[in-house]
Structure formats: structure tokens, C-alpha cells
């Protein structure tokens, strides 16, 4: 999985925001704000990552049990898919 081309994550005014550039900005001229976990997952996804790798990274970087990590990832992915922000492979 990978975030769609043309979306960039930056930190502005202490908040994680995603905006669209290039062709993506024609269809999307809004603004997505993410919490710290969301930004972490987005960062991972922007380089391309599998579900299992993402889960493994999250378990080693955060002190969470597997169930909580899965819920976090699943929730994020569902929202991102709904907003059409992901390229799946």
C-alpha cells in the first residue's frame, strides 16, 4: 500500500496536515489534518509498505498490544480508502 501521488504531509502551526499538489490538487483542494499516530502511519505509507510491515513497525515504535495497533491501522486505512488516498497493490 502507498499513499496516492500528489499528497504531501507537513507540520504547520503544530498540526500535521496533508495537502494535494500537482494533478491531485485539481480534484482535492481541501486539507486533511492528522493526529500523531495518523501522521506516523501516513509517513510509513508514503514510502510504500505492506500491512504486516506496518503492524510490525508500529508494535516496535509504540508501546501497544497487537489488538490496539491493528485497530489503529484499520481505522486509519478505512478512512484513507474512503477518501481515495491510497494506491493498493
Amino acid at each position: 500500500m502507498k499513499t496516492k501521488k500528489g499528497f504531501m504531509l507537513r507540520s504547520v502551526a503544530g498540526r500535521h496536515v496533508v495537502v494535494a499538489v500537482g494533478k491531485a490538487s485539481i480534484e482535492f483542494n481541501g486539507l486533511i489534518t492528522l493526529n500523531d499516530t495518523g501522521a506516523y502511519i501516513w509517513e510509513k505509507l508514503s514510502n510504500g509498505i505492506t500491512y504486516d510491515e506496518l503492524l510490525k513497525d508500529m508494535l516496535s515504535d509504540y508501546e501497544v498490544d497487537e489488538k490496539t495497533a491493528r485497530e489503529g491501522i484499520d481505522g486509519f486505512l478505512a478512512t484513507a480508502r474512503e477518501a481515495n488516498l491510497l494506491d493498493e497493490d
Partner: protein
Amino acid sequence: MRYNIAGIIVDMNVRFPRLGSQSRDYEYDGERETNVKIRLSEQFYNDRLEENPHLDYEMIEYIWMGSEFYNALIHFNGMLLHSSCIVYENKAYLFSAPCGTGKSTHTQLWLKRFPGSYILNDDKPAIRINNDGTVYAFGTPFSGKTNQNVNKAVPIAGICILERDTTNHIESVTPDDALFNILNQTVRPPQEDCMDMVLQTLDKVLGKVPVYRLYCNMDLEAAEVSYNGMKPDDE
């Protein structure tokens, strides 16, 4: 002809009276090097005219010279904020909102209520951060439908997002709350590196300048409420 707009030396080939008269106060014949050169070609005019048959050459020049200027501004620690900017007691107050909300109507109330106040730019002030981190608003020749602009740089006291209401009240908003409104009222360039610069500038501006949300009607009291809510504390 060269112009000094928001401290940037701009070389523009102005051909029509509207921009000609509005940019007169910005003419520059000093020693500084040109920072930005803007040329609109015959082909460019004709293409825009075809896409926008309601416009004429004069308006095309005014709109797209402005647009090129604000794109360039991004490269100089600057950004456009679509807003009506009023100056009072040598501090600039920017009122931003989507078209038709009543930005100019509100600053016109300030003119009536506060003698000595003046409009710096009625629609498209430039914002720039100088080397010591102070954030300034600048008049530019590009001020929307009205020709109200003054060639000055004034430190910003506050940015205010304006909303209509039946009564007048004002609140402070956190920078992250204001982000969405402000990003919607500036140039969002399609190029990633330029977008990056906009976000960096905005991050610095929001770190320095307080942001407010004003709910207002069209009574003179609205100006009073917004001034009292935004005026800097006496130091």
C-alpha cells in the same frame, strides 16, 4: 518599467490604464537588481480572452499580472491573504473570508469609526516576514474590484476570519483552527516545492500573529468589537 512591490523589485510590461494608474505609486528607479520579471505575451492575452469572453485586455492584464506577482511572492518568504486590510495606529488588521461575506463592508465601518485609519489593500495584501521575524502586511497595486491600496509596509496586529451574524462578538482562535480558513484564502501552488514554501511561511506567520474569529453584522458597533478584541496590549 520596474516596481517595488512588497519590497520585491518587479519588472512588468504594463500596457493598460487600470494597472498603469494603480501601480504608479510603486514605480522604482533605484539601484536594486530586479527580483522578478513578468511578461504577458500577445498569445497569452488572446488565450485568456477566449477562455473568459466577459473580460477585456485591461482586466486580463490586471488579473494575471497580479496572479504572477503572488506566485512569485511565495519565493520571498511571502504569501497572499485574500482579505481586506486596514491600518490604524500603525498596525495592520486583516479581515479574511470567502467572497461576498463582507470583508470590505467591515473595513469600511472601521474607516467611519476610527479617524486616521486607512485601507492598505482592500482585497489582496501581501504578507511577508522580515529578517527579525516581524510579520508585515504590504499594499500592492492589485486590490481586487476597488483601487484601494497604499504602498506601505505595516506590522500586523492580527488576522481575523470574518463570519456574518446578527450580533457582534469576537474570539481568539488557535493557529491550527485557523489553518483551514487561511489556506482556502491564499494561493495554493500546484508545485510541491512552492507548496512547501507556502506552508513554511504560513507556519511562521501563525507562530507570530494572533488569529481571531469575528461574528459580525453591518452596524458601526462591529468595528468597535473587532478593534477592542484585536488591539495589541499596551507594552
